[in-house]
């Protein structure tokens, strides 16, 4: 069995080696990528992969890194744990990449990161947002996004200070760690500062009918001042639409999952009044990310689907910066170089990667939806 596998791998390797790359004079730098482009996580990881490919293309067009092009070796995680772990093993031991980027879920990251850690390969998490992932894995683990605590704290402060809210209703996806975490952090901060959570409700991944939750909110007397909706991408528009059409007009605050053009497209412009969310970057003109958005449009024919595109894009550029800074192109040197990047200017905000234990210190972007357009309120830190 293993012999057959080995032979096949050899054949695949020969086939890969035969791939014609324009800057063929120099051997390419192998950058691994694990994104689920099938299964339930494809909705967020597919845009991340597309943006990562775009970033690699841009870097190679400008001469690559130290004269060598980047080759992005991607495997589909299939939204399945075993496949993600297999992909990590394949990248580390078969393709022998010198760095890895990938996944937009903390569980997926925890399943694949120990493999890179054991092999001493730097592995940058694109979208999993448990704040202390690197601490849980080790020195070769890094995070691109801010942690769940950051964005939930900013959202809670915004509700208390800007919207003058005293009471809030919590809605969350009970099946997902990310939504549970931001709901928990929001509650923690909101109650710390004397706000009151009047009621909570949980839906389940795959639900599209929120009528029971909407009725629960309507039945509250008095009505809460805000709704904090800890939802996964795609669910946001469905809920906002059902809430607004049932006559709920109170402000709705969401997390980075809300950051997608489909929010307005699928919920309708008039229904998205008084909707706010925290995110990694403002997908609006004049926010500094517009160059990226234009390039993405030119490449794929439509704007980035959600904020994970920006994170995928930045993941490649962060690795590229680390490779440029590294004394030599080895995994260890690249890993050390990441810690020296204290002022990374990405499309998802400026970030400092020097803390070996936690998510980068990064500003949270706060957006208001106005007349169907995303309006930048500002960049904040908790």
């Amino acid at each position, binding site marked *: 069995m293993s012999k057959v596998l080995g032979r096949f791998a050899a054949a695949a390797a020969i086939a890969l080696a035969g791939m014609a790359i324009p800057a063929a004079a120099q051997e390419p730098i192998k950058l691994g990528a694990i994104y689920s482009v099938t299964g339930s996580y494809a909705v967020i990881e*597919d845009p991340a992969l597309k943006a990562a490919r775009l970033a690699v293309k841009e870097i190679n067009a400008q001469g690559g890194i130290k004269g060598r092009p980047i080759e992005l070796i991607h495997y589909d995680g299939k939204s399945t744990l075993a496949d993600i772990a297999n992909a990590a093993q394949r990248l580390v031991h078969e393709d022998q990449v010198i760095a890895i980027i990938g996944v937009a879920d903390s569980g997926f990251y925890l399943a694949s990161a120990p493999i890179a850690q054991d092999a001493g390969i730097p592995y940058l998490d694109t979208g999993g947002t448990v704040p202390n992932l690197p601490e849980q894995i080790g020195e070769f683990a890094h995070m691109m996004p801010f942690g769940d605590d950051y964005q939930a704290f900013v959202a809670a402060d915004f509700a208390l200070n800007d919207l003058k809210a005293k009471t809030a209703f919590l809605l969350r996806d009970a099946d997902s760690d990310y939504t549970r975490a931001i709901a928990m952090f929001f509650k923690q901060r909101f109650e710390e500062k004397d706000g009151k959570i009047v009621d909570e409700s949980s839906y389940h991944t795959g639900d599209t009918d929120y009528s029971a939750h909407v009725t629960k909110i309507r039945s509250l007397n008095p009505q809460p001042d805000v709704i904090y909706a800890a939802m996964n991408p795609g669910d946001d528009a469905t809920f906002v639409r059902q809430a607004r059409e049932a006559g709920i007009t109170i402000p709705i605050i969401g997390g980075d999952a809300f950051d997608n053009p489909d929010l307005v497209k699928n919920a309708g412009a008039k229904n998205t009044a008084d909707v706010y969310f925290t995110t990694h970057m403002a997908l609006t003109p004049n926010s500094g990310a517009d160059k990226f958005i234009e390039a993405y449009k030119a490449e794929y024919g439509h704007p980035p689907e959600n904020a994970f595109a920006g994170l995928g894009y930045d993941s490649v550029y962060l690795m590229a910066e680390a490779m440029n800074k590294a004394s030599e192109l080895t995994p260890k040197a690249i890993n050390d170089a990441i810690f020296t990047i204290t002022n990374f200017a990405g499309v998802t905000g400026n970030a400092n990667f020097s803390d070996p234990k936690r998510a980068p210190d990064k500003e949270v972007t706060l957006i208001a939806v106005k007349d169907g357009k995303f309006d930048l309120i500002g960049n904040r830190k908790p």
Partner: protein
Amino acid sequence: MIRVRKATIPIALLLLIAALWLAQSQLNAFYLQVLGLLGINIMLTVSLNLAAGYGGMFSLGHPAFAAIGGYTAAVLTYPVAMKAFRIPAYPEWLLQIAVPFLPALILGGLAASIAAVLVGWPVLRLRGHYLAVATLGLTVIVQVSIVNLVDYTRGALGLSGIPNYANLWWIYGFVVLTMYVVYRLVHSRFGRALRAVRDDTVAAQMSGVNVARTRLIAFTISAFFAGIAGGLLGHLLRILTPGQFSFNAVFIGVAMMILGGMGSITGSVIGALIMTILPQFIIPFERGGSFFGFELPALHGLTQIVTALILIIVMLIRPEGIAGSKELTMRNLVTRTRGPAIRTSVKTSGSEVEAK
């Protein structure tokens, strides 16, 4: 009772040991992990086959047993230093101990067995699809509980940081044990009673078989091995999440069993091979690029499509599965060369190796 050629089994075992030794010393971690997953899938399929193929209890609840066994074993072996703040809800004495691998696995298997008894007692009265749907309910209930009992399981995030104890020796040791126990069981007096219950409950009852007890025992043993497989899975991937034991796991398990053949241990191995190893050959083609001179675009989902087509085509060509209810034994190999003397009827499954 079983008169397989005396030398066959020792030779096969020696070959397996040599292969494992070679694999463990020569192959990189990627191949070891895939081979490990293969072994775990073989265990899961063989154990499901004991309940469904030989016992006629079409269970969709085996992922629940794997989950119970997996989480139990993982909580037991979990490093003490991390227990207190990652899974703080357990009683103090449990937080203070880290159990060695083997007893943890066995306790996991026992936990799954206990669950099987508790669930099987009322539910095994049901037949056919009613049993299938009731056991599917078990899978959902266990999964929902894992997600929500965060302080015991770490919820949807998954219990990560499980020690990586499960190497090929452990896994294939248990694969051999599972296959041996199931084979002996099925070809014993108990096995004949079990198949009699499957084929004709009333007739079995009339010949003095305690139907409820027979079914419950087979179901419990089956759950025991599923639980051990779950424990091995956690200690191979170093993480357990509720998503690993969802609808998807139910269907993959059933597909592996039916693909290979219900009521055949050989079939279980074939089914697990196809569903575990074959995708690994297709994956390199998914991301596109040039292969043997041809330019291919990225074909996301290719693995799933090929798997789906294999399922459909095998069902169309061989509705009884690749191996049917036959076994690959020396004796069958010999008979095959003489002519098509192997009986294929479900009701006589396994009888060809039961030479008295």
